């Protein structure tokens, strides 16, 4: 016989049901088509200047969605990821946060990121970024990040110095052309270098371009190394030859310059004519020195595949433990597709991933910023095959490339041994 319903039990049930609905309301439960609501924590890396831009975009979002209370947390790049790692371990990631392509796989594999697939095509419009954009954050298990911005790789040139020596960079199409132009610019007697050495630094996007131009990938979808020792050996040999000729700085000179930041960069100090960089660095260099600094596309290998082009995505992700998934997805769409949002954030993180959004910014950008945006828009029209998501441990490849690059430059090892060492080491950290 069932126990009778008492006043106490009825009131308890009623209060419990009310609490459940209340919690659901506070969590931002919003049936399809309703406005987003609830609290959102947003995380981004950068300094106070970038934080101001993104705060103003968030204020715009809050004005349109009065039921959403969004707060921003920020820190410089390295501390940001330290905080993110600890927060992820505690299940306390921000609801919406930015991520690099080198870190996303680790968080996705750990189950810390929400699969955005169910929102793509719905709350999150994908027409602007296209399949290539969606692929930027895709692994076999789902889509864990979407690009709000892209950065591209570029060659920066001291156009005044090139013009003085009668070197026309528009004729530089291949890596061999680049080496020849750099050799022409070199003046060893005055300590002037034609080209700077990217193999000793921490950024190896130029090597990624080299690999993709050879038809291979840095990593496979299975998380293994996608290139062989021959491709890497050719890369190291290319720079070793120029180092021997004096076209690029000696190991000590380059390392010293790299360690002290942009203010000690040899192009900034007018001690070099050409350097490999990110397109967004044009503004940094122009801010630190006078003169006409040119922005140029990467050269290609003689046998380059046509669809090698790639762009470094700046990805936005949603925490798997967010209590407000609908509002988070709506905010992701806001930062990707909204032109007014982009007018606040400008090109602080890179060129907007949606071409129309990028074009809408051009009238209000400075000259060098327009050059960067136009370059990326132009390059995005080239064919580009999917870039497999960088797996967990991929950051160790960067470290290995730097370490071996330095060992080769300081003549501690040969090019062939160095290349073999990188390939052999990769088996240890790519599980």
């Amino acid at each position, binding site marked *: 016989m069932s126990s009778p319903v008492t006043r106490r039990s009825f009131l308890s049930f009623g209060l419990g049901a009310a609490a459940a609905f209340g919690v659901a309301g506070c969590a931002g439960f919003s049936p399809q088509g309703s406005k987003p609501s609830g609290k959102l924590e947003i995380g981004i890396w*950068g*300094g*106070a200047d970038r*934080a*101001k831009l993104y705060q103003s975009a968030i204020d715009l979002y809050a004005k349109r969605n009065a039921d959403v209370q969004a707060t921003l947390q920020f820190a410089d790049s390295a501390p940001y990821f330290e905080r993110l790692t600890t927060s992820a371990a505690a299940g306390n990631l921000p609801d919406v946060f930015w991520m690099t392509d080198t870190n996303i796989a680790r968080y996705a594999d750990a189950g810390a990121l929400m699969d955005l697939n169910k929102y793509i095509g719905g709350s999150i419009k994908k027409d602007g970024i296209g399949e290539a954009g969606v692929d930027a954050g895709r692994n076999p298990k789902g889509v864990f990040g979407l690009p709000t911005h892209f950065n591209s790789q570029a060659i920066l040139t001291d156009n005044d110095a090139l013009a003085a020596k009668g070197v026309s960079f528009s004729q530089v199409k291949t890596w061999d052309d680049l080496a020849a132009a750099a050799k022409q610019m070199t003046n060893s007697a005055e300590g002037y270098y034609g080209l700077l050495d990217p193999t000793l630094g921490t950024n190896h996007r130029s090597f990624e371009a080299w690999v993709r131009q050879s038809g291979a990938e840095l990593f496979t979808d299975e998380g293994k190394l996608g290139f062989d020792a021959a491709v890497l050996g050719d890369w190291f040999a290319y720079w070793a030859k120029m180092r021997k000729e004096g076209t690029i700085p000696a190991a000590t000179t380059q390392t010293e310059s790299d360690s002290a930041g942009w203010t000690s960069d040899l192009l900034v100090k007018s001690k070099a004519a050409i350097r490999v960089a990110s397109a967004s660095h044009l503004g940094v260099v122009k801010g630190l020195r006078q003169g006409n600094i040119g922005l140029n596309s990467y050269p290609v290998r003689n046998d380059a595949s046509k669809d090698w082009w790639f762009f470094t995505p700046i990805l936005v992700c949603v925490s798997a433990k967010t209590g407000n998934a609908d509002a988070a997805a709506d905010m992701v769409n806001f930062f990707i597709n909204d032109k007014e949002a982009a007018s606040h954030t400008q090109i602080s993180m890179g060129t907007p991933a949606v071409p129309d959004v990028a074009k809408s910014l051009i009238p209000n950008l400075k000259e060098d910023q327009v050059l960067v945006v136009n370059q990326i828009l132009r390059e995005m029209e080239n064919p580009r095959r999917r870039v497999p998501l960088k797996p967990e441990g991929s950051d160790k490849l960067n470290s290995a490339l730097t370490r071996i690059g330095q060992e080769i430059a300081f003549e501690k090892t040969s090019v062939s041994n160095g290349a073999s060492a990188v390939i052999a080491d990769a088996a240890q950290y790519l599980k």
Partner: protein
Amino acid sequence: MTSQTNMIPKVALLQPPGRARKKPAYLRRFAAHIVISGLGLLMLYPLIWMLSSSLKPTEAIFSEPGLIPENFTLDNYVQGWNALGLDFGIFVANSAVIAVLSVIGNLVSCSLAAYAFARLEFRFKKVMFGAMLATLMLPFHVVLVPQYILFHSAGMTDTFFPLIIPKFLAVDAFFIFLMVQFIRGLPRELDDAATVDGCSAAGVFWRIILPLMRPALAVTAVFTFIWTWNDFLTPLLYLTDQELFTVPLALNAFLDSGGASAWGPLFAMSILSVLPILVIFIISQKHLTEGIATSGLK
């Protein structure tokens, strides 16, 4: 013969032949001061360089190597004070609150723990002392995530509590050990005399041990203040609201590793951030040396 001997100065008779006179003591001291001052200036050079850079326009900081600014400016101080959208004084106040409360916490908890280990007898004392010492060897990163999970579960992230509460729980084994060694150097007869007069253990601590522990307390206070003031990682993890930022977090906000950092305002605010530490150190210098010197001696 005798008259000739009397004419030779006594000093000359006392000194062995061929040996020159010693240099006067003041010359030796002067030379020592010159050498030590030179070494001191060498160590101070980075601070002097930072001060000089804070008084130069940002674009001149890395292009003008000299210490004397060619274009003297205070703009970096003006810009830096408001650069983060809030007065920099707010961050200084936040750091001061956390540092002062941390000092109080450490003084109270570590002195009590040290007294217990040094003077009292209780079960498992040796085990607990060993465990306390073992925490000295533990890298902070080992406890970083569990501690964060603990405070997050308690809903204390984005508050000052995770930065202050541990100080009231005697987590700084270094200071406990320092005070234990100091207390062990105090004569037990004082404790015995107080006990005979009717003092409880707490009374002995309050009336006898604590007043005599002033040098060790001064060391604890100064180093707690300095280390808390300079702490970057713990506030980074727990404080996300900019209004709660401490000075190191605020200084970090001037940096942008992907672009151009605001070096001039950064150096200007760094100079201001160093001043409280400098003042604290100068005021407590005498107690500091006394505390470090006597912590292990009778």
